[in-house]
């Protein structure tokens, strides 16, 4: 692993002479991007789980971005109520009891869901990593204070808290819903980022920077954050899955005000008023949104599973183009960090 990113490559360092003598700004940038984004992507894609997972997520992304333009929003069509799936070309997934196309329903629920996931994931990851990194790096009193807060918040059951908040604020904007759903998620993340941080705080180059009087923020952002990038990525994916689960649960219960279509809302109407439980003819109405939820979370889990390999530094080094070395041949079982997927 190259640690020379923070400092300009100087020739006066006899043991670490860069081949070109000088690293330009662009080179450093491309190296950072290669190390923190491209290499993890390559590792994820080298695994079958990663391939399938990324494909599924790409499909959802396509459905969320292009879907609403390709498929018109669901409209009532009293002539074709409860059409089964694959019966009519016009309604590939069938229709509900008022003749609304279920495919359109599922597709038009995707953009708000992606917005929620994005907003919530970004919120949880940002707050979680800042708190975790600062606590882990600073140590001492700061660490204790931050961890007391984090631990106390972690012990508050998430879903009831979200339900109470959602009830009081009645959020309609999907971004806001996402942030509210992510409120309980960041604490767990801060805890795990902190424990990832502990071994890093005493690494030589960090110590050197500290002795040179470089500010804490600069050290955290420039020297430490890149090393935690893969972990943060995986946390983003796990947090996203939690948001998908919780948001659908809340829409299913009818706790959140419904403005946009949502898979949970569709499930709720099918379950409570559509009688999908009692007659086979209406079952597809319930199954379509269920599959939408399950596949999205399946995609997220597969990516997170494939990303577990990121924590093995040898595998990581092999996939870095800029700093690749040939001497790592042996395949090692990835050291799994306290698995983030158990919930």
């Amino acid at each position, binding site marked *: 692993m190259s640690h020379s990113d923070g400092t300009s490559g100087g020739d006066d360092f006899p043991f670490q002479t860069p081949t070109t003598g000088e690293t330009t700004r662009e080179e450093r940038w491309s190296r950072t991007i290669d190390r923190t984004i491209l290499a993890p992507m390559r590792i994820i894609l080298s695994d079958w*789980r990663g391939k399938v997972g990324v494909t599924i997520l790409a499909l959802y992304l396509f459905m969320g971005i292009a879907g609403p333009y390709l498929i018109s929003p669901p409209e009532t069509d009293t002539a074709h109520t409860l059409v089964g799936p694959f019966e009519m070309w016009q309604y590939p997934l069938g229709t509900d009891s008022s003749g609304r196309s279920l495919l359109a329903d599922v597709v038009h629920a995707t953009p708000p869901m992606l917005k929620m996931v994005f907003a919530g994931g970004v919120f949880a990851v940002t707050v979680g990593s800042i708190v975790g990194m600062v606590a882990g*790096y*600073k*140590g*001492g009193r700061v*660490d*204790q204070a931050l961890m*007391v807060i984090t*631990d*106390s*918040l*972690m*012990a*508050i*059951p*998430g*879903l*009831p*808290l979200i*339900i*109470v908040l959602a*009830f*009081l604020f009645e959020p309609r904007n999907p971004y806001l819903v996402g942030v509210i759903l992510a409120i309980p998620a960041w604490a*767990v993340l801060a805890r795990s980022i902190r424990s990832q941080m*502990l071994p890093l*705080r005493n690494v030589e180059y960090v110590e050197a920077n*500290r002795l040179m009087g470089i500010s804490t923020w600069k050290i955290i952002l420039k020297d430490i954050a890149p090393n935690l990038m893969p972990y943060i990525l995986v946390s983003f994916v796990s947090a996203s*899955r939690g948001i998908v*689960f919780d948001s*659908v*649960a809340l829409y*299913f*219960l*009818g*706790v959140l005000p419904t403005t946009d279509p949502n898979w949970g809302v569709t*499930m709720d109407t099918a*379950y409570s008023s559509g009688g999908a*439980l*009692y007659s086979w003819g209406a*079952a597809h109405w*319930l199954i379509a949104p*269920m599959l939408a*939820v*399950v596949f999205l*979370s*399946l995609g*997220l*889990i*597969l990516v997170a*599973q494939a990303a*577990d390999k990121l924590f093995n530094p040898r595998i990581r080094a092999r996939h870095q183009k800029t700093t690749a070395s040939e001497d790592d041949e042996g395949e090692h*079982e*990835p*050291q*799994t960090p*306290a*698995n983030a*997927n*158990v*919930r």
Partner: protein
Amino acid sequence: MHWVLKRAARAGFTVFLVVHFTFLLVHFLPGSPMDYLQAQLSRQQGLSEGEIEAMAAVYLNMHPEASIGEQYVDYMSSLLTGDLGTSIYFNESVAELLGTAIPWTVFLMLNAIAISFAIGISLGALMAYLEGSRFDNVMTVVAIVSNSIPYYIIAILLVYLLGHQLDLFPVTGRYDDRTTPGLNVPFLSSVVYHATLPALSWAFAGLGGWALAMRANSISILGEDYLRVGRLRGLPTRRLTLRYVARNAVLPLYTNMMVVIGYAFGGAVVLETIFVYRGVGYYLFRGIEARDFPLMMGAFIVITIAVVTALFLAELTYGKLDPRAQEGGTDESF
């Protein structure tokens, strides 16, 4: 400070936070429960202003016209005596309603966690033992799929399949009304019978995660040197698998348990609503649905206390199992 005291203090702090959070919500939010309740009451019958205020005080444990300080003292002191106000919807004491409900939630969710944990880690251990075999590959896929289905979807499917179609299990209620509650066989068996579907839905959704984590942990331990030494010493396989591998692989999962406990009690809200299982989660949902603030806030506080207690007990046992947990971080500060 002794670590047990530390943990206890932290648990207390969480409850302190939640209680103050609810107080702030009741008091300061625009269109707060206080205003809402007064509006609700004044709409109901031709009550005088004074009567409305008196009733609001009974429901929410604070007098609308009192100063903030007095309201705070009122609210906190009644909470300390175990008075959570009166439910508007059920017109009963919230503490009594929830007091009878909480054992059911604890019973249901602890069983659900225990089932998913037991099956999950056994599967994971078996998968690790047979690593690379067809069983391992198939079960990995099954575990990933089980992990990606939310528990409430499994609940709905179970209700449909085992409840309505095959008519094997009851889909609502906590026990059979024809039995008399008490320590008798028909009652207890009907309790278990009614809890089966909700517990299974949770267990089924959770076991994949446990299995995968257990598999990963066991595999990394199977490569350890001390295991090879143990084998060379000719220790019996039983001892190796149970004491050397299983124990060390399970310990790290204990921290996951902390997260799962909180998550499970949260999930109880959804599960109990689907199965009309009158636990605390069910009442939280009813409180939300009926805009019954005292019930909603009370249920939230009670769930939090349950989770905090469970976490505290889990941490105490963990401290016994793994002495490292008792040491605090004593790093120097930068």
